[in-house]
C-alpha cells in the first residue's frame, strides 16, 4: 500500500479522499492554491503544499506544480478527485514518467474512453447500443447528410468535450450548417480540438449510469446504477439509486453489459458508464467517466462499499476482494447537491462568506462538505458547498428524509444564496415524486411562471 498520497484537488472531494486515506493509515499531502489555504482538507492533512494562485490553470490544472509537490513531499501516489486533471491522459502519462501512481485508469484507457468519438466507436464494438450518429471527419456537407440520416432533432457535440459545453441542439435542417460551424469554433476554443460529432437528440430522456470497479488482474464488478436525470445547465443536481424506473433485472442486465465493456476496454479503477434511457426504456451509451464521481456516496450507502478505499487498493495493485455476488444493494439513497447559486437568476453562482452553517444530521443522513461558519465561497471554483445524501428502505421514505434534511440545513451569510429551496421544490414536484421526470424537469419548472 502507498505510504503517502498527494491529493490534487480541493473542496469536499479533497476531504473525502483524505478521510479514507486517514482511515487506512496512509499519510496525506494536500496540494492547494492560495485561495484554499484555510480549508479543512489543508487543516487535516499530514502535510500541505501551496502549489499556485487561485486560478486553476496555475494550480489545480498545472501538472508541473502537482508533480513537483508530490516529489518534494515523498508522495508515491496522486489522487486527482473529480474535475481538474482527473481525466487527463497527459497528466496520467506525466505521473507515470515521474514514478508516481495516478489513482485512476492507465493513460491509454483514459485516452481511448475520454475522447467521445473514440468512446462511441469503442462502445459499438463492445456491444453497447449507441444513439444514431457519427463523427464528422469530412466537411459540413457530410455532417449535414449524417444529420438528415439520423433525423432531427440532433445534437452537435465536441469530441473532446465534457460538462455540457460546446454542445448545440439543432431542430431544423436549415439551422445545421451554422450550428456545426459554431460548435467547431467553441470546441477549438474550449478544448483545443475542433472535432465534433452528430447524434440524435433525445428531448425527454432519463439519465442512468453504472458504477464499476476493475482491478489490474482482469476482475470487474458493477455496483448497480444511479439515476441522474435531475440536471440544471446539463449538470446533475439530484441523484438516486437504484433508478426508480428500472427493474432490478434491468439494472442487472445493464450492469452485466457494462462489466463486459469495461473488461473489453482493459479498464482499471473506479469508473462510470453513462447511458440515456429513451421514452421506450431503451438504453443508449453516452460516455465513460474515468474517475470517481460527485454522486458516488449514494452507491456507498446502498452497498456499504467505500469506493475511495477500493480505488486505493486497486491502484496499489491488489486484486478486488469483492466478487459480484458480494455486492448486495439495500434500500434507496438520494443525494442533493447544495450549490452556492441563485436558481431565480439562471443558477448564477453567488459569492460571499458563510456566517451560519448547520449541516443536517441524524438517522441515515450523510453530509460531505468543506463548508463551516466563516468559510468563504469564491467565484474561483465550482459552487458546490455540500452534498446531502440520505438512505431509507424505500423511495417514498428516502424522499421524505431528503426533504427533512434539506429543511434543517442552515447556510447563511452576506451574499450567499443556495439552491436549498429549489431542491425542495424538485423533491415535492409531482413528476419527480412519480419518477416521470426527464432531463427537462428543471427547465420546465423554471419556464412556468409562478402564479
Amino acid at each position, binding site marked *: 500500500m502507498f505510504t503517502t498520497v498527494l491529493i490534487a484537488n480541493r473542496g469536499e472531494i479533497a476531504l473525502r479522499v483524505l478521510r479514507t486515506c486517514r482511515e487506512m493509515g496512509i499519510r496525506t499531502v494536500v496540494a*492547494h492554491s*492560495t485561495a484554499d*489555504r484555510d480549508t479543512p482538507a*489543508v*487543516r487535516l*492533512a*499530514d*502535510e*500541505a*503544499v*501551496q*502549489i*499556485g*494562485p487561485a486560478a486553476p490553470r496555475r*494550480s489545480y490544472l498545472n*501538472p*508541473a*506544480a502537482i*508533480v*513537483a*509537490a508530490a516529489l*518534494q*513531499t515523498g508522495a508515491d501516489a496522486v489522487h486527482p478527485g473529480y474535475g481538474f486533471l482527473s481525466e487527463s491522459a497527459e497528466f496520467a502519462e*506525466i505521473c507515470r514518467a*515521474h514514478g508516481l501512481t495516478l489513482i485512476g485508469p492507465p493513460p491509454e484507457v483514459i485516452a481511448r474512453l475520454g475522447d467521445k468519438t473514440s468512446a462511441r466507436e469503442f462502445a459499438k464494438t463492445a456491444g453497447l447500443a449507441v444513439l444514431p450518429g457519427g463523427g464528422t471527419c469530412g466537411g459540413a456537407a457530410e455532417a449535414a447528410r449524417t444529420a438528415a440520416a439520423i433525423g432531427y432533432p440532433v445534437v452537435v457535440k465536441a469530441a473532446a468535450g465534457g460538462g455540457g459545453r460546446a454542445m448545440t441542439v439543432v431542430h431544423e435542417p436549415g439551422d445545421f450548417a451554422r450550428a456545426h460551424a459554431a460548435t467547431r469554433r467553441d470546441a477549438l476554443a474550449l478544448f483545443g480540438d475542433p472535432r465534433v460529432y452528430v447524434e440524435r437528440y433525445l428531448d425527454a430522456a432519463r439519465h442512468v449510469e453504472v458504477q464499476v470497479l476493475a482491478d489490474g488482474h482482469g476482475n470487474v464488478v458493477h455496483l448497480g446504477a444511479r439515476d441522474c436525470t435531475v440536471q440544471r445547465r446539463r449538470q446533475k443536481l439530484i441523484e438516486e439509486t437504484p433508478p426508480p424506473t428500472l427493474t432490478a433485472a434491468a439494472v442487472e442486465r445493464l450492469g452485466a453489459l457494462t462489466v463486459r465493456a469495461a473488461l473489453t476496454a482493459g479498464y482499471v479503477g473506479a469508473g462510470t458508464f453513462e447511458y440515456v434511457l429513451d421514452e421506450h426504456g431503451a438504453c443508449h451509451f453516452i460516455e465513460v467517466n474515468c474517475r470517481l464521481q460527485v454522486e458516488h456516496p449514494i452507491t456507498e450507502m446502498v452497498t456499504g462499499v467505500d469506493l475511495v478505499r477500493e480505488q486505493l487498493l486497486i491502484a496499489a495493485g491488489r486484486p478486488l476482494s469483492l466478487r459480484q455476488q458480494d455486492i448486495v444493494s439495500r434500500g434507496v439513497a438520494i443525494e442533493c447537491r447544495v450549490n452556492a447559486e441563485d436558481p431565480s437568476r439562471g443558477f448564477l453562482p453567488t459569492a460571499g462568506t458563510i456566517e451560519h452553517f448547520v449541516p443536517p444530521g441524524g438517522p441515515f443522513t450523510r453530509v460531505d462538505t468543506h463548508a463551516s461558519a466563516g468559510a468563504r465561497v469564491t467565484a474561483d471554483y465550482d459552487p458546490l458547498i455540500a452534498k446531502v445524501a440520505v438512505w431509507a428502505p424505500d423511495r417514498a421514505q428516502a424522499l421524505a428524509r431528503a426533504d427533512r434534511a434539506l429543511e434543517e440545513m442552515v447556510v447563511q451569510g452576506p451574499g450567499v444564496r443556495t439552491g436549498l429551496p429549489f431542491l425542495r421544490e424538485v423533491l415535492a414536484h409531482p413528476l419527480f415524486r412519480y419518477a416521470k421526470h426527464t432531463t427537462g424537469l428543471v427547465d420546465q419548472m423554471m419556464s412556468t411562471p409562478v402564479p
Partner: protein
Amino acid sequence: MTAEPAPSQEGERVLDWVTRHAARLAGTGPAPLRRITVSTATLAVHVEWAPPPAGGAAPPACPAVEGTPAAAARQDAIMVTSPMVGTFYRAREPGAAPFVEIGDLVEPGQQIGIVEAMKLMNAVQAEHGGRVAEVIAADGAPVQYEEPLLALVPDDRA
C-alpha cells in the same frame, strides 16, 4: 495512554528497548517527545511528540514569526518569493557562486536564484530592488508557491 503492566522479565526488556530508542526517536519529530506507549503481547507502539511550536503543516503564508530578531528585521523587508513550487537553487550550477549573497545590492529584475520543477530551471527575479538582508530558503530546499526566498531591505542606492 499508558503501558500495560508487563510480567517482570518482559518489563525489563521493554524498558531497555524504550531507553535505547527514546533518544533516537526524540530527534525525528518536529518537537520534543511527549509520550511513548508500549503494549506487550501483541506489540503496539505509540510515540507522540509535543505539538510543533508553529502552525505545522500550514503553508508559510506569512513569513514573519513574531518575537525572533530575524522576524523583527523582516518586518520592513521586501520578500522575494517563489513563483512556483519546486526546488530552490542559489547558484547557476553546483559549485558555482550564488547569484546573490547577504549584503549585495539587487536591482529590480535581477535574477536571484532558480526554482526547478520537473527538470525545468525557472529563473527567479527580484521584482523590487534592495540590499539582501537574509537568505531564507536554503540551496536545494523544496519551496512552495509564494514561499519567501530572500529578504531585501530598501536601499537608496538600489
